[in-house]
């Protein structure tokens, strides 16, 4: 076992355990904190896979901005826990059954149908330039310039949409 493999196994355990904790905890604040840990472990995976820029973006945008927004809304609404009333008693068994079906399908694809890219030989590793930020920037501002600009418009629209949705109408009072 190489060091990489040991590190992968430990991190995989952490990410699956934190995802399970997110699903199972009753309190939404605990769920959010588990999810922050999960995002952090995935960021380490990105570092292992030679994507340091994506790892940093993951930490700042996901674990930083998005989860802070989540925690802010949870505490603003005071919605840590829901009242325990069962409206749909068959919901949980059905959900578990459907998730088991999804697991079976993915396991079939992964195990029976072999690795997705088994037939394709990756290019020989001459110089590993994947992690270099310069290449990422060149690709982003040449080949992917249009999607990049569209993303900026999308973020602007999202910002305006969030303001419009939460703004109180004139005369409306709580």
């Amino acid at each position, binding site marked *: 076992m190489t060091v*990489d493999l040991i590190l*992968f196994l430990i991190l*995989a355990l952490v990410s*699956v355990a934190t*995802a*399970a904790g*997110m*699903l199972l905890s009753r309190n*939404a604040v605990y*769920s959010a904190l588990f*999810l922050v840990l*999960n*995002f952090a472990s*995935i960021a380490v*995976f*990105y570092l292992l*896979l*030679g*994507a340091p*820029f*994506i790892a940093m*973006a993951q930490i700042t*945008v996901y674990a930083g901005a*998005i989860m802070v*927004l*989540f925690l802010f809304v949870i505490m*603003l*609404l005071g*919605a840590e826990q*829901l*009242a325990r009333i069962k409206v749909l008693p068959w*919901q949980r068994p059905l*959900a*578990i059954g*459907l*998730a088991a079906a*999804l697991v079976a399908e*993915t396991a079939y694809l*992964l195990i029976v149908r072999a*690795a997705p*890219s088994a037939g394709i030989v*990756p290019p020989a*590793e001459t110089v590993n330039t*994947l992690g270099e930020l310069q*290449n*990422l920037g060149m*690709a*982003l501002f040449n080949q*992917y310039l249009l*999607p990049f600009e569209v*993303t900026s418009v*999308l*973020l602007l629209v*999202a910002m305006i*949409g*969030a*303001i419009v*949705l*939460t703004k109180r109408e004139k005369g409306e009072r*709580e």
Partner: protein
Amino acid sequence: MVPEIYYITLSAILFTMGALGVLARRNALIIFMSVELMLNAANLAFVSFANTFQQLDGQIIVFFVIAVAAAEVAVGLALIVAIFRSKHSIDVDQMSNLKG
């Protein structure tokens, strides 16, 4: 080097857990967090493929996914706040009216 199939398997497991969260939980905020978990699982697969083929495109797609997720969270949380204002609950079972 860790084989690519390990990363894809982990990504599939995380995606399934996210899907389970969306189906089984009733708290709208936790459903939303599960969607984020599914997005992250897909991102992990993208970065893993980018590493296997030594192509940058996978990483750039992930960059865009992160940006779109940020926009989605802003609008989605605003919707949840608006629903809470009219219904005083974020239980998705309570959101059964067409007119608030």
